[in-house]
């Protein structure tokens, strides 16, 4: 019983800083292994701030730490990186650009 | 490396040659006297029955740099079906009107051209221009630096600091590794940043209180003061407009007595016609050119077919975009200039295009002195440089010219002066307008001729009745004595040199420039200059 939401991925300051420390570093993993969500969505889906959630798209599945963020209802954000890319489909619709933003995703407590 | 091109009919107008049989000897890249060569060790080309000319010199071509590359990027449709595959060491490439860098070098060389000048580079992006030039093989080249809307220069003019303006120009040419001063729509490009333009030589440049006339007068004075090898290279105001012939003639009067080169003059020789179709004012403009011995021009001949217009003249490109509906690139460059790109298709059936075509033809035929009018298509604005053989045919073959004239739109053709112009260019005159003349105007003493000491850049043609065919595929092309193309196909791709000037200036000016930089630029003063080792095979050309 997960919620159907829209996934966007993108750069964050913390992700960029973490990258310089190396992709195996704690900083990088902390910066990229999380999902930001709308607080009301979190309440509705019984997701705790800081809790582990499972995200699922047609491309794959990944478990991340949920964080309340300033997102409109229905939208979730995952910083760019290997975790986000478990969820992004490789289909580019003839453009070369996959759907880094706008895939349908279900989110549920892990 | 030694070379003998023997027994050919040599057209070397600089040294008086008009088709007499002569042997050309070369050693270590230069033309030498016969006694300096050991004929047994030289590569011997039997040129009996063939036409021998110096390598072609293009005085105005947009072949590399920010604008050209934006044009390439803009036009995938231009490249499709106009590809060349990689063969051996030669790179692949593409582009019908805006070819890629390596292909540009090959195509020019295959046509017998060995020296080409990039016509417009903003100093802020001169580094880009030089990086592309390094990827243009075979050709010797140089870059003109746009200054007609430069803030520092205009401030100097406003403040009456002519010497400071002179020192700045010398500094700017040196740090951008440029070859000549380029002026594009003086003041008009700055005004375009306010959505405006200039229309008269005495209009005000917004925010600076100077006029196009002052800018022209100042740079012409500076050019003489610095003793630059080339004249200031000027694209005047009102390009493409019906007032252009009038302001072109006014500009010549203003600059009378000073060395001046007016580029792609065809685009600036129109008068008021009927409706949106301008008239050709080539006769009046040619008369002014004939009367001003310090003036040289290149024509910018329109060739029917696809082209890509690209100039630093931002407002012009915008109006072309509005007029044609074609896609449009604009680029405003901080403190210096601007520019735009619009693809175009010149059609015989379009009366405006037809007038442009015949205006160019009339200029070629009405300017008396071939040493002062040069063959260009303002590549790729009026057509690709690969059309030069076709333009040569139009000039040499009156019957063919009339055939084309008969095919163009009625409104342009009716009453056109071109019907009455019987002149046919001779091979010697072609050698002047495509080699000797532009080399002399550029101040390149070792180019455009085959006298002792000249660069051994030699094009050897099979004479044919069809002059377009003759000039499209030379039998042999030598660059610095090395065979680079044979039967119209490239066979070697040595790197070419980059010519630049480094005129002396009062170093005191650098303090002012540095201060200007802090306010006017988003790059550091220190990162603006190019060192001489950042120019591929750079060679400084002496000022007077």
């Amino acid at each position, binding site marked *: 019983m997960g919620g159907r939401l*829209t996934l*966007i*991925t*993108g*750069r*964050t*300051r913390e992700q960029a*800083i973490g*990258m310089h420390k190396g*992709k195996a570093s704690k900083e990088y993993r902390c910066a990229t292994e999380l999902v930001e969500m709308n607080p009301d969505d979190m309440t509705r889906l019984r997701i705790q701030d800081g809790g582990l959630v499972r995200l699922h798209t047609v*491309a794959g599945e990944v478990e991340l730490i949920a964080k309340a963020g*300033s*997102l*409109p209802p229905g939208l979730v954000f995952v910083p760019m*990186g*290997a975790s986000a*890319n478990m969820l*992004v489909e*490789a289909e*580019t619709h*003839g*453009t*070369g*650009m*996959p*759907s*880094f*933003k706008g895939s349908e995703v279900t989110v549920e407590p892990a | 490396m030694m070379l003998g091109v023997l027994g050919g009919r040599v057209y070397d107008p600089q040294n008086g040659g008009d088709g007499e049989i002569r042997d050309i000897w070369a050693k270590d890249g230069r033309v030498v006297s016969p006694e300096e060569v050991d004929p047994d060790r030289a590569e011997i080309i039997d040129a009996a029955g063939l036409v021998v000319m110096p390598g072609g010199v293009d005085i105005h071509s947009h072949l*590399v740099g920010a604008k050209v*590359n934006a044009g*390439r*990027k*803009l036009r*995938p449709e*231009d*490249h499709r079906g106009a590809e060349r595959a*990689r063969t051996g060491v030669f790179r*692949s490439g*593409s582009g019908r009107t805006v070819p*890629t*860098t390596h292909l540009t070098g090959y195509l020019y060389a295959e046509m017998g051209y060995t020296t080409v000048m990039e016509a417009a580079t903003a100093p*802020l*992006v001169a*580094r880009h221009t030089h*990086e*592309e030039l390094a*990827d243009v093989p075979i050709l010797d080249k140089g870059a003109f630096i746009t200054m007609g809307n430069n803030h520092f220069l205009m401030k100097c003019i406003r403040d009456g600091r002519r010497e400071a303006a002179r020192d700045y120009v010398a500094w700017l040419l040196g740090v951008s590794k440029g070859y000549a001063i380029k002026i594009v729509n003086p003041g008009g490009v700055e005004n375009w*940043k*306010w959505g405006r333009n200039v229309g008269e030589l005495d209009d005000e440049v917004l925010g600076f209180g100077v006029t196009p006339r002052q800018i022209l007068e100042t740079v012409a004075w500076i050019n003489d003061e610095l003793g630059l090898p080339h004249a200031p290279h000027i694209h005047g105001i009102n390009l493409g407009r019906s007032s252009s012939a009038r302001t072109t003639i006014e500009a010549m009067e203003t600059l009378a007595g000073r060395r001046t080169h007016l580029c792609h003059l065809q685009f600036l020789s129109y008068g008021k016609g009927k409706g949106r179709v301008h008239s050709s004012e080539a006769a009046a403009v040619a008369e002014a050119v004939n009367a001003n011995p310090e003036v040289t021009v290149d024509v910018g001949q329109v060739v029917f077919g696809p082209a890509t217009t690209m100039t630093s003249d931002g407002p012009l490109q915008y109006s072309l975009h509005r007029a044609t509906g074609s896609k*449009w*690139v*604009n680029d*405003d460059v*901080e*403190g210096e200039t601007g520019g735009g790109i*619009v693809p175009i298709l010149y059609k015989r059936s379009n009366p405006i295009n037809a007038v442009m075509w015949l205006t160019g033809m009339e200029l070629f035929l009405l300017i008396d002195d071939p040493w002062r009018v040069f063959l260009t298509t303002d590549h790729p604005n009026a057509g690709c440089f690969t059309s030069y053989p076709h333009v040569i045919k139009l000039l040499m073959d009156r019957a063919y010219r009339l055939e084309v004239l008969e095919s163009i739109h009625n409104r342009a053709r009716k009453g056109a002066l071109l019907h009455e112009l019987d002149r046919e260019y001779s091979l010697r005159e072609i050698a002047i307008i495509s080699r000797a003349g532009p080399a002399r105007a550029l101040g390149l003493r070792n180019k455009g001729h085959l006298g002792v000491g000249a660069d051994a850049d030699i094009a050897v043609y099979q004479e044919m009745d069809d002059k377009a065919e003759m000039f499209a595929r030379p039998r042999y092309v030598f660059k610095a004595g090395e065979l680079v193309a044979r039967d119209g196909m490239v066979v070697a791709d040595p790197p070419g040199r980059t010519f630049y000037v480094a005129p002396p200036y009062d170093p005191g000016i650098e303090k002012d420039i540095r201060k200007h930089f802090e306010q*006017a630029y*988003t790059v*550091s003063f*220190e990162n603006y200059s190019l060192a001489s080792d950042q120019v591929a095979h750079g060679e400084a050309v002496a000022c007077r």
Partner: protein
Amino acid sequence: MTTMVEHIACTFCGCVCDDIVVEVEGSRIAGVRGACVVGRGVLDEYDPEVRRPVVAGREVDWEQAVGAAAAILNEADSPLIYGLSSTAIEAQRKAVKLADRLGAIIDTTSSVCHGPTGLAMQAVGEATCTLGEVRDRADLIVFWGCNPAASHPRHFGRFSLTPAGALTPNGRADRTVVVVDVRPTGSSKQADHFLQVNAGADFEVLTALRYLARGEDVEAAAIGGIPVSQLRDLVRTMKACRYGVVFMGMGLTMSRGRHLNVGELFSLVAELNTYTRFSVIPMRGHGNVAGADQVLTWSSGYPFAVSFARGYPQFGPGEFSAVDVLARGEADAALIVASDPVAHLPRAAAEHLEHIPTILLDPTPSLTASIAQVVFPTASYGLDAAGTAYRMDNVPIPLHRLFASGRPTDEEILDRIIEAVT
């Protein structure tokens, strides 16, 4: 002994700030002044240690690694060359030369950032300007689908928000700033107006703006989640400004519509020039991704996704772009330069790199390094490799060689591979 070296360019993002002061102590960096929190990491983490190349998990000498790379490329029928956005144009030139020589497919990280922007430019053109024009003239700045506060931290201070310019002497007070995004961000906090667009609805909002700009009416209360009254106000502001600039980012290129979104924005910007002056600047991400577009374009005619398989360049986004070539399993070897596709491409594409021999040139350890067959730990551009990087507005910035580290540059390794392939 420490030396202060001034006017150093930071190569992390597309701002390529060239006013950084670096305190050099022998072979390492002792201090950095002027860099932002994101960019200074490049300098702070600079590790001058010369590491040896690795082939199949074993350290080898450079010559052996070049031999191994050449053998992989000679063996391959359809090699892919990819990355190139974090290296100097000198290396990019060699990479294209190698692709041409091999008949390879070459693509850059452009295809997964502003590739769609390039497609839009090819369709409708692009009215743009350099960043100095923004600082000196622009009194209206619109950020659409980008968040410079996170991705380009000095952008606001150097170009777009606060600096004083010739016609903007009062800095921030002389500019109206609008942010359009799907969510509030660090950047929207800085704006005078924030328009929150529904995810995936940019195209209809931009179309509505084009309508309104032409004086047509839009019969709806809201478009894409934005009240039409707000869109009307935006159009009024756009038409009334002296010089407007839109900065656009991944919010448009990665969302539904992709190049069509960007094309709609570029058309709007072109049309606004009927009323006033307007420009658009794509927020390029990596330090020299703009240079990668430039080099590939001047060498092949096309900015990314180029195949030389037929002997001449062919352009094929969706066909020759890295994600597609990898996800379809078409590449049988890969050469990655200065990029980490294993971290940054969708899993289905990235995992193919684990199944084919992959060669990597990169100074820093990465996920791609962990799966690559051959790894060349090359010099860092702008630190121990000189060259040129092109800023997001395509202004070329020279990169200096601060250290003689002994690490070969990407350019040198590519040159040696070119020599070694048949």
